[in-house]
């Protein structure tokens, strides 16, 4: 009897020891997580000197953003600020800072750091993309107390919190005021300090960035690995080779590599909703193109009907892409009637070459017409060239004679400026990145002034749909009521979708090849191609093996 009791005690003690050992193992930060990526941008750790992709890939690991992510659905969620409130007059946003946050030198993160960081992003020497807009829209920033900061704007800025979320832009990165003022900019750039779950260790220009996990609990998650190395490996086949040999745990890849990576035993992760591959038409509203076939919305609709999107998804994207929502909208887009647009897109973006031919004939082009089309691909989306070539072939099948010209991305944006002589009256491939707020993207494509794409009209020619769009966009930027905001967004999407001027082809994804012996199973943030905010959530292979 005594023996049985003792045995049970021993068994219980053993279980407790085993459980605590397992718990300790789970808490231990060991090993090095190695990520091979095609670009490290400017490889600078100063947030005011880097653009969105670089910030999202490597600055995100060591800096927290004022507004963060909704990790499950994608889009905007809590960050350094746990909540934010708009004043009754719509002119002041109050951000409530999460208590207990510290920088890597153990200084507390306060509202003073937030004010300092936003003002630094807006400074004349800042290369931040939104610096000019911030200077224009933000009137002043007040620190109410250590955990409360107010941003006063010159006009209602409903989208301000989204603009300070890393889901949208990098300008919300919070920098350490006291440290930066004490050591100066040059020293800060050599030895940067942030508040993220990884602290900076070393930067080898053109080669790699090294980080070390913080040991304390962090609201983004406590890293499971001790070290994080981000390697710059521009050539995709080399990146995949490194993952296969175990020299790297994860590598960014394109859809064309997915099948071979998968066949060679690697895990392939597809991040949904990171971009839309689109095509668009330029200057169709101008008097000189009044009689051009692409000035006719029905013909533009026929061109969309001639595209077999499923073929593109199956054969170019290897099945790892989706039918798109309307232009610049995704499953996580805020203030949008998703079901309505999902249903609309299924019908509108169907493949119907018979109908396409019928419309062309009805509109006076039974034998088709000649179309100038510029093919290009943004860095990291080389498959867009294949998509552009494929849709040109599909248009040829319904009788359109496509004159296809290829442009390296660096030489393409200047064509969109000014009078667009190389593009007006024709179309081109383009892309839109996955973001939760759409007015910003619509503005760059459809605004009639400035240097955007000006697809609907310009300062001299702005017809009915153009004027309606401009009015909705203006109303939308100031509308606070969520129901009215959704109605306005829906109407804006509808007006633009019916023009068939800017047309989605597929909703793309971000793709990664993964060595399952080097890292455990993890999920990316929907709509977020880059993994800078995900590394701390990645388990080691022994903690969470990949399901076969």
């Amino acid at each position, binding site marked *: 009897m005594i023996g049985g009791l003792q045995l049970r005690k021993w068994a219980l003690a053993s279980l407790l020891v085993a459980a605590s050992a397992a718990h300790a193992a789970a808490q231990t930060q060991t090993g090095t997580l190695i990520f091979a990526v095609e670009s490290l941008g400017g490889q600078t750790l100063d947030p005011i000197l880097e653009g969105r992709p670089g910030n999202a890939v490597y600055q995100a690991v060591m800096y927290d953003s004022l507004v963060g992510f909704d990790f499950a659905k994608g889009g905007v969620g809590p960050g350094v600020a746990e909540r934010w409130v708009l004043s009754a007059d719509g002119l002041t946003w109050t951000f409530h800072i999460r208590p207990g946050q510290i920088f890597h030198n153990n200084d507390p993160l306060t509202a003073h750091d937030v004010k300092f960081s936003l003002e630094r992003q807006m400074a004349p*020497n800042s290369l931040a993309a939104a610096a*000019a807009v911030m200077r224009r829209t933000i009137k002043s920033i007040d620190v109410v107390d250590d955990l409360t900061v107010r941003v006063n704007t010159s006009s209602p800025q409903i989208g301000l919190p989204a603009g300070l979320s890393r889901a949208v832009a990098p300008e919300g990165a919070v920098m350490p005021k006291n440290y930066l003022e004490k050591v100066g900019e040059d020293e800060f750039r050599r030895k940067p300090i942030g508040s993220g779950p990884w602290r900076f260790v070393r930067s080898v220009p053109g080669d790699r960035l090294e980080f070390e996990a913080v040991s304390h609990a962090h609201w983004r998650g406590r890293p499971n690995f001790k070290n994080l190395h981000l390697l710059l490996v521009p*050539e995709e086949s*080399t990146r995949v080779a490194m993952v296969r*040999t175990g020299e790297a745990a994860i590598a960014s890849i394109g859809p064309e590599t997915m099948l071979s990576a998968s066949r060679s035993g690697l895990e392939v992760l597809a991040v949904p909703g990171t971009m839309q591959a689109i095509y668009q038409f330029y200057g169709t509203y101008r008097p000189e193109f009044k009689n051009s076939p692409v000035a006719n919305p029905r013909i533009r609709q026929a061109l969309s009907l001639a595209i077999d999107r499923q073929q593109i998804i199956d054969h170019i994207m290897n099945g790892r892409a989706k039918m798109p929502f309307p232009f610049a909208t995704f499953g996580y887009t805020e203030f949008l009637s998703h079901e309505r647009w999902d249903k609309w897109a299924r019908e509108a973006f169907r493949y119907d070459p018979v109908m396409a031919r019928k419309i062309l004939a009805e509109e006076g082009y039974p034998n088709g017409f000649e179309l100038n089309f510029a093919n290009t691909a*943004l860095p990291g989306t080389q498959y867009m060239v294949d998509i552009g070539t494929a849709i040109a072939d599909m248009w040829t099948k319904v009788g359109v004679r496509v004159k296809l010209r290829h442009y390296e991305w*660096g030489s393409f944006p*200047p064509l969109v400026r000014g009078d667009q002589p190389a593009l007006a009256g024709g179309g081109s491939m383009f892309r*839109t990145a996955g973001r939760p707020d759409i007015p910003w993207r619509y503005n760059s*494509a459809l605004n009639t002034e400035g240097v955007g794409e000006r697809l609907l009209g310009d300062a001299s020619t702005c017809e009915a749909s153009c004027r309606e769009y401009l009015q909705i966009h203006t109303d939308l930027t100031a509308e606070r009521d969520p129901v009215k905001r959704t109605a306005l967004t829906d109407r804006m999407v509808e007006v633009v979708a019916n023009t068939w001027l800017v047309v989605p082809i597929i909703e793309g994804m971000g793709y990664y090849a993964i060595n399952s012996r080097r890292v455990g199973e993890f999920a990316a943030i929907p709509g977020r191609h880059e993994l800078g905010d995900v590394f701390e959530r990645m388990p080691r292979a022994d903690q969470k093996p990949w399901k076969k």
Partner: protein
Amino acid sequence: MLLCLVATIVFFLGRLTGNPVDMILPEDATGEDRAALIKTLGLDGPLHEQYLIFVGHALQGDLGTSIRYRQPAVDAFFSRLPNTLAVIPWALLLAMAVGIPLGVVAALNRGNIIDRLVGTVAVLGVATPSFLLGVLLIFVFSVELGWLPSGRMGGPSHYVLPVITLSAFLVAGFARLVRSSMLEVMDSEFVKLARIKGLSETVVIWKHCLRNALIPVLSLWGVFIGNLVTGAIVTETVFAWPGVGRLTYEAVIFRDFPLLQATIILKAVLILSINLMVDILYAYVDPRIRLT
């Protein structure tokens, strides 16, 4: 004079094909964002004014600040140059070690199967693109056999594949040059005299013939080293090697004008200096040059 021409061409050619602002800003940036950034980067003046400022600064040794890396472009170049120079001597050495004997063997077996084999190797070496060779080597020696790392700088094993890739083109060059040069020398009077004197064939070929056959090869060293410096762009990209080749590639893709100008001008200086040194060395090795 040549450097001024190179600098001017690079300055205007770079600006013909794009703008760094478009590379920095996202596709949904506004005109206001763009105008502000153009001003911040100092690209808002007329082109001729920008050129005069560039020339003025260049004459003082200042080739501008890299737009992408926010550091003096000259510093960026010289921080990467050692990485490229770490590979080039080994590639040159390997190319000579393989190419010169191949050329000699081909010359000694003129017209027969061995000569044709060497010719085939030479043609393959010249015709195989570096990126293809590099990727093939990675697949065989890193992925399949697991003998060597796939890329990046590191210990001696990291050098093997990039050095082989870089030297492949030169092996072919050396082999063809040495072959033709050897054939010419083997017909000369002093070689016949050496044989009449009763010297062994090995001494005649490897001492008298090869030594003289290498003199014209030396004159092409400058060209070969130039090829290595410029050809490193592809090899460094495939093997993720952080040298000046990849820096140039990044400067072109990003339209980083100051960095592009600096890398091209400094590479031109480097190649001109090497050619000058080779000319001096040539005069030292071949007394006929000094006499003329």
